[in-house]
C-alpha cells in the first residue's frame, strides 16, 4: 500500500488547483485586499467588570489578589475547597518573572514540573492576555506554559494581570503580535472548564479536561 507521498501530493495539488482556477478564481500573484471588518466596541473603562461577568458566566470562579506571593496559600486553599490531593504541576519560572522573590510553597503541596502527566490534580499557569468580550483567558504554549497543564489536570488555576485584559478577540490577536515567523505552537483561548452536553443535552463539567477553572486576578500594576 506504499505510495510515493511527495509525488502523490504534487499531482493532486495540481488537479485541485486546476479545478479551482477553471472557475476564474485564479491565484493572483499579489495579495488580494480583504474587505475591512467591523469589531464590536466595548466600554473601555469597564473592561475588568465586563470580563469578570462573562468569565463567571462560563462556570468559572475568580479571586482578586494584590500580590503574587499570596499564590501558594491560595492554591493550597483551593485543593481543600475541592477536596483533591495536593499535587500541583507548574513551571515556577513563569511566576518568578512576575516578581523577583521566589514563591514560598507550603510543604503540604507536592510540586512537579511540566509536562503534566495526568497524575497531578492541579495545574497552575499564566495567561498572556484575556478577552473581555467573551470572558476568555489566552495562554500561549511555551516552556513556561506547556499545553498539557491546561488539559490534563483536574483543576486549573490561572494567573492574569488585570492590565492584560483587552476588549475583543481582534485586539487579543494584536496584543499577542503573532506572525508566521514567530508562532507559538499553540494558542489556547480558554473560556470555562471542560464541558459536554452530548448525553441528553445536559451540560456536564469536566468531560476530558479540567473540572474547574479558577482565576487569580492580579490587581493593577
Amino acid at each position, binding site marked *: 500500500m506504499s*505510495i510515493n507521498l511527495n509525488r502523490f*501530493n504534487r499531482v*493532486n*495539488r495540481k*488537479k*485541485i488547483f486546476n*479545478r*479551482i482556477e477553471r*472557475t*476564474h*478564481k485564479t*491565484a493572483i500573484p499579489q*495579495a*488580494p485586499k*480583504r*474587505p475591512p*471588518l*467591523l469589531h*464590536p466596541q466595548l466600554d473601555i473603562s469597564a473592561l475588568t467588570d465586563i470580563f469578570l461577568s*462573562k468569565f463567571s458566566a462560563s462556570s468559572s470562579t475568580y479571586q482578586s489578589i494584590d500580590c503574587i506571593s499570596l499564590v501558594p496559600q491560595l492554591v493550597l486553599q483551593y485543593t481543600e475547597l475541592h477536596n483533591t490531593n495536593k499535587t500541583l504541576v507548574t*513551571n515556577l519560572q513563569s511566576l518568578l518573572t512576575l516578581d523577583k522573590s521566589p514563591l514560598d510553597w507550603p510543604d503540604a503541596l507536592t510540586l512537579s514540573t*511540566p509536562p*503534566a502527566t*495526568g497524575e497531578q490534580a492541579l495545574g497552575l499557569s499564566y495567561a498572556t492576555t484575556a478577552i473581555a*468580550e*467573551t470572558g476568555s483567558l489566552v495562554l500561549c*504554549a*511555551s516552556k513556561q506554559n*506547556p*499545553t*498539557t497543564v491546561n*488539559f*490534563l489536570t483536574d483543576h486549573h488555576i490561572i494567573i492574569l494581570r488585570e492590565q492584560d485584559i483587552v476588549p475583543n*478577540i*481582534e485586539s487579543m*490577536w494584536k496584543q499577542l503580535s*503573532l506572525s*508566521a515567523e514567530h508562532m*507559538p*505552537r*499553540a*494558542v*489556547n*483561548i*480558554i*473560556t470555562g*472548564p*471542560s*464541558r*459536554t*452536553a*452530548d*448525553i*441528553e*443535552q*445536559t451540560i456536564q463539567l*469536566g*468531560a*476530558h*479536561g479540567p473540572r474547574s477553572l479558577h482565576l487569580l486576578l492580579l490587581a493593577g500594576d
Partner: protein
Amino acid sequence: MVEHYKSNPQGSASNSTSGPHQTLFFKAQSSHALLDNTLQEALKKAKGGFIEKRSKAIADVENFESYKQQAQLVKNHTLDHLAYYLTQFEDNLIKNGGQVHWASTPEQLNNIILHICERRDAKSVIKGKSMISEEANLNAALEAAGIDVTETDLGEYIIQLAKEPPSHIIVPAIHKTRQQVEALFRNAHDLGDRELDTIAALVDEARLQLRQKFLNADIGITGANMLIADTGSAMLVTNEGNGDLTATLPKAHIVTASIEKVVPDLESASAILRVLARSATGQPITSYTSLLSGPRGIEDLDGPEEFHVILLDNQRSQMLGTPFEEMLKCIKCGACLNHCPIYSAVGGHAYGWVYPGPMGSVLTPLMTGLKQSSDLPNASTFCGRCEEVCPMGIPLPELLRQLRNKEHEEHLTPRKTRISLQSFMWTIQHPKIFYWLTQITRKVLTNTTLSQFFAKYIFTSWYNSKELPKNNSKGTFMEQYKKSSKQKKT
C-alpha cells in the same frame, strides 16, 4: 447556471467509502424513524433546547445581524481568492515546520493517513471530532489496516460503540437516551458493580476509559474549524478539550480539513468565531478555541513531533462558480438542523449519510451524486427557517429547489411525480379545461360524502396524516370574480 455543475464528475469514487447507498432510502428510513419510540423520545428531549439557547445568545449581543454580515464578507472574499489563500496557507504551514497533503477524493485522504501510520509504525490512533473523516469513513479504513482507532468526543465515542454514524453534525449521539448510553458502556467496559445511573457518572466513566487511550496513542487525528492563511495555523473549536488532548499528547498530529476551511487571517477568523458558537450551542465562545501552528519547537515541553494537514476537495472545487458555491460558506454550526421540522421529526440517520438536515440535503447530492440521493432535495417543506437562522446566509431552500430542477431535468423524479407535474402543466396551459376542472373539484369538495370518498380511497396516503379542510365557498374564484364584477357594472 445549474448546467455548470456536473453531478459527481470524478466518478463514483467518493461513494465507495460510505458503504451502501443509505441515501437512497430516505423515505423508508424516515417512516421507520417516526415509529421508533426511543428515537422519538430522544428527539423530543433535544428539541427546543438548541433553539432557545441560540436565541438567547443572539439577544445577548447588540447586533447579531452585523456579526453575520462580517462573517459572510470573510467567506465571500476567501472563496473569490481560494487558490491564493490555499497557497499562502501551505507556504506558512511549511515555514512553521508542518506538512501539507492534498486529497481529491476521500479515498486519497484515507491513503495518506494510512501511509503516515505505516511510516510511523502506528498501532493506535485517537480522534477528535472530524466531519471530514466521516466523509471518508476513515475509521473503517484504519480498522481494516489493523489499527486500533478510538473516537474521543463523547458523542462520537458513544456512536462508535454503537457502530452507528453520527446523527447530528455537532451532537453526534443526539438520538441516544441515557439508558442506551449506559447499556453501551456496560457492554464495552469492565465495570464491575459500579453505578452508571446518572449523566455525571456516564461522563466520568468515559473520561476514565479515554484517558488511558489519550496517553497511549501513537497518532492523533482531529478536524479543523478554520485554517488561517497568513499564520499557517489550524483553528480547533471544542468544549470537551478532547481535541486539544488529541492534538497535544501523541507523537504525531494529523489535521483533516476541507479546502474551503481556509480564511485570510486571524481577524477574519474572529468574525466567524463570533457567529459560530452562538449559532451552534448558544455560547458566546466554546470552552476551548485553539490555534495550532506546527510541531513542538526545541523549547517546548509538550506537543507532537510531526504536524500534518490534509486538505480534502471531494467535489468542493466543482461547486465554485455555480449556484452551489454558496454551500461552501457553511461553517457546520448545525443551526439549520436544529430548526428544521423534517430533521426534528425523523432525526439524522434517515438522511443516510454524514450530513443531515437542510445542509445535508444540499451537500449529500453534490458529494455522492444526485442519483444516489434523489429524495433528499425533496425532504423539505420550504418553510425557510433554515435560511433564516443560517449565520452564513446560505439560501438553502433555493439550493434545494435548484436540485429539484436538476432532478427533473435528469429524469430522476419518480414517474408518478413527473406525470402529475406534466398533466398539471398541460392543464394550466388550457384555461378552459382548467376552469371546468376547478368547477368539478369545488363540487367534490363541498360535498362531504364525495370528498370523504376521495380522501379515503383515492389519495389514501396523503390524507392518512392530513385532514381535508371543509369547503363552504360560494363558487370557484372565477365564478365569484365574475359575479362581483357584474354587480359593480349594474
